[in-house]
């Protein structure tokens, strides 16, 4: 990531935030708007960040993974379903069910990734076709099971969706408490601190995603494992010559990628809302890939790009809040269908490489033949 790219990201985020501040200041002070936008941005960027990390692991090892969307969708379904099963059938504690649900989601992501690995590494299927197979399979599988288990005659849960154990709780970071003594009796100071605190009060997966960004950066660029991963992605023959098992490294990294995609899936049904609907991922797996490309296949760059998409989604959400104070000459901002186009157009714009071209790993998408 160079300054040009980070500059572009900063610019877009500033513009998106600026629009909301300008529109919303009739209703709320700018600080409150900015912190609320930031909090939303970080939260909704979570699946994109994790999806992009998933792509980074797979593609650094030389396997194109276009099936992230499908992995997320399947994981979202099975994580949610697992939580319900634990909660309703095995009568487990709600919190335990939720945590187990997250594990089911991660496991599901890994299983789908295993399928991708078998197809692309063992059977050397065209990797983009393999990923598409996973995407279509995910839609069919989740749609079928969702209908079969919950709706219609003879369904397991008798025609209705049972109560899910709920969602992961928000973790409070005690910034306000820390500043209480500093602020003293000033109410305005305390209010501002509380507003800032909102940015840091995130749910576990959102927090974990940020930790994983830096952990992944360390793993990829500072460990033996990372060096080997990058070696099989750049020049598998050379890696093979020095005794690295190319297939094994690729399998392992695709599986890790699948787990990340699985955790991203858990965000949808276990952290964000406690329900599932068909096609709920809505293209975010593909947007993750764009974030990965724009981030030049690095974890931190991908995260920065994911935040841009998060901000454009936060724009859509906040525009609904300030719907009634949008000035008439900006009436198009009331149309959620139009504002909702932002991430998609942004993705296409970024892929043009106007902001600077990025280079994929040299052996990305190429099956290795000894």
């Amino acid at each position: 990531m160079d300054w040009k790219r980070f500059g572009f990201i900063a610019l877009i985020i500033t513009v998106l935030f600026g629009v909301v501040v300008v529109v919303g200041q009739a209703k709320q002070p700018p600080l409150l708007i900015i912190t609320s936008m930031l909090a939303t941005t970080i939260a909704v960027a979570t699946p994109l960040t994790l999806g992009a990390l998933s792509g980074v692991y797979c593609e650094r090892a030389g396997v194109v993974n276009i099936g992230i969307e499908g992995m997320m969708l399947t994981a979202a379904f099975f994580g949610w379903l697992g939580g319900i099963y634990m909660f309703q059938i095995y009568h487990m504690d709600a919190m335990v069910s939720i945590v187990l649900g997250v594990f089911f989601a991660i496991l599901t992501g890994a299983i789908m990734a295993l399928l991708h690995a078998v197809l692309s590494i063992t059977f050397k299927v065209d990797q983009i076709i393999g990923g598409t197979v996973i995407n279509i399979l995910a839609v069919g599988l989740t749609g079928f099971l969702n209908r079969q288990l919950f709706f219609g005659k003879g369904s397991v849960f008798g025609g209705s969706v049972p109560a899910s154990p709920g969602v992961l709780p928000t973790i409070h970071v005690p910034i306000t408490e820390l500043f209480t003594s500093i602020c003293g009796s000033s109410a305005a100071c305390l209010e501002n601190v509380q507003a800032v605190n909102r940015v840091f009060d995130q749910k576990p997966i959102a927090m974990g995603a940020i930790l994983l960004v830096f952990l992944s950066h360390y793993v990829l660029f500072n460990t033996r494992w990372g060096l080997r991963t990058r070696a099989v992605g750049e020049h598998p023959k050379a890696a093979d010559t020095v005794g690295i098992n190319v297939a094994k490294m690729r399998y392992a990294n695709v599986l890790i990628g699948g787990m990340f995609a699985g955790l991203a899936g858990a965000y949808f049904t276990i952290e964000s809302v406690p329900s599932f609907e068909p096609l709920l991922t809505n293209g975010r797996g593909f947007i993750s890939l764009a974030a990965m490309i724009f981030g030049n296949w690095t974890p931190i760059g991908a995260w920065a790009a994911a935040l841009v998409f998060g901000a454009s989604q936060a724009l859509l959400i906040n525009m609904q809040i300030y719907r009634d104070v949008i000035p008439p000459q900006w009436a198009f901002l009331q149309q959620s269908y139009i504002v909702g186009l932002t991430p998609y157009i942004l993705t296409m714009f970024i892929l043009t490489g106007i902001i600077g071209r990025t280079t994929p790993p040299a052996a990305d998408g190429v099956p290795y033949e000894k």
Partner: protein
Amino acid sequence: MQSEKQSNSLIKRILQSISDASLVPFLAILTAVIIGGIIIKIVGGDPFLAYKGLIEGSFGSPELGLEKSLKAISETAVWSTPYIFAGLAVALAFKGGLFNIGAEGQLAVGAVFSALIGYALPEWLGFDLPVYIHLPLAIIVGMLMGGVWAGIVGALKAYTGGHEVINTIMMNYIALNTTSFLLNGVMKDRSPTNVIARTPLIAESARMPAIFDGLRVHWGFVLALLVAFFIWWLLNKTTLGFEIRTVGLNPDAAQYAGINVKRTIILTMMLSGMLAGLAGSIEVTGLNYRHELGFSIGYGYDAIAIALLGKSHPLGIVLASFLFAAMRNGATRMQFLTQLPVDLISMIQALILLFVAADAIIRYIYRIKSKGERVVLTRGWGG
């Protein structure tokens, strides 16, 4: 004598090549059907009854009587029409080394514009058009707009290297959002009873007639077969087809041979988009007489499976379209007989796609030796 022998061996060779080409897809379907049956068993259904329902629902049976059977066959043809167009769209792009996942969006754009020409043009002009002008116009405009929609992605690919896989998907979402916007806004059916996001009905003069009275199968089906033949001719007998295939096989060699690669990429995408747009246009002018939001969920994705199953050959695509259409059409009867949800079909289709795409698995299971070289379908990010 000599020539008879030769023609005999020619027929034999053709039959041989057909059976070679269809062996793996056939086994892929068989394997998917078997696994589908196991899944039906696991979820507590009766696989044999389910498949009986599928076949009866799509091709009829003596039990159902002649009238219902004819209706079933007609409905299968109706379902297969958009599949043929969309399958050809994906296949044509494959031939050119491009992966068009955007048939869904191109189809929606084609449908929106056909519907617009269909209901609004007489109003704009202030007089009624004869059917031989209005109908072709509605179809052609829809087709061209599908082409433009895909052409944008082609141009981005040719001039900036933006990968068509992500861009066509993004264009799908943009098409979906934009059509939602239009169908809920300016293009919404204003009749007082309507609450759905849909256009008004198109004028009589923009509607395609049915082939037989009382059955829904329309001339669009015949058009689909003709277009399939045309695409075969285009790809195999024309310079443009040769250029498309050459760029698909090896863009560097094509460049070296003096083919304008950028132009060919854009043209391929546009032609592909036009075919997908046709799928939408024909659904509007031949079947629904309006565009309704969400009428096409999944055609574009099924088209990928159809193109792969049909090995990107127009004849193969027509056959694969019949298969997919039969499954979709028979699903209702299957659900009626067994209470299994229609979504089961999507799963079996996904399995078929899995085994067709990963033909190595099928070859491994059934111990078939691979003949010939690998076919390059798509290229990585760098391409």
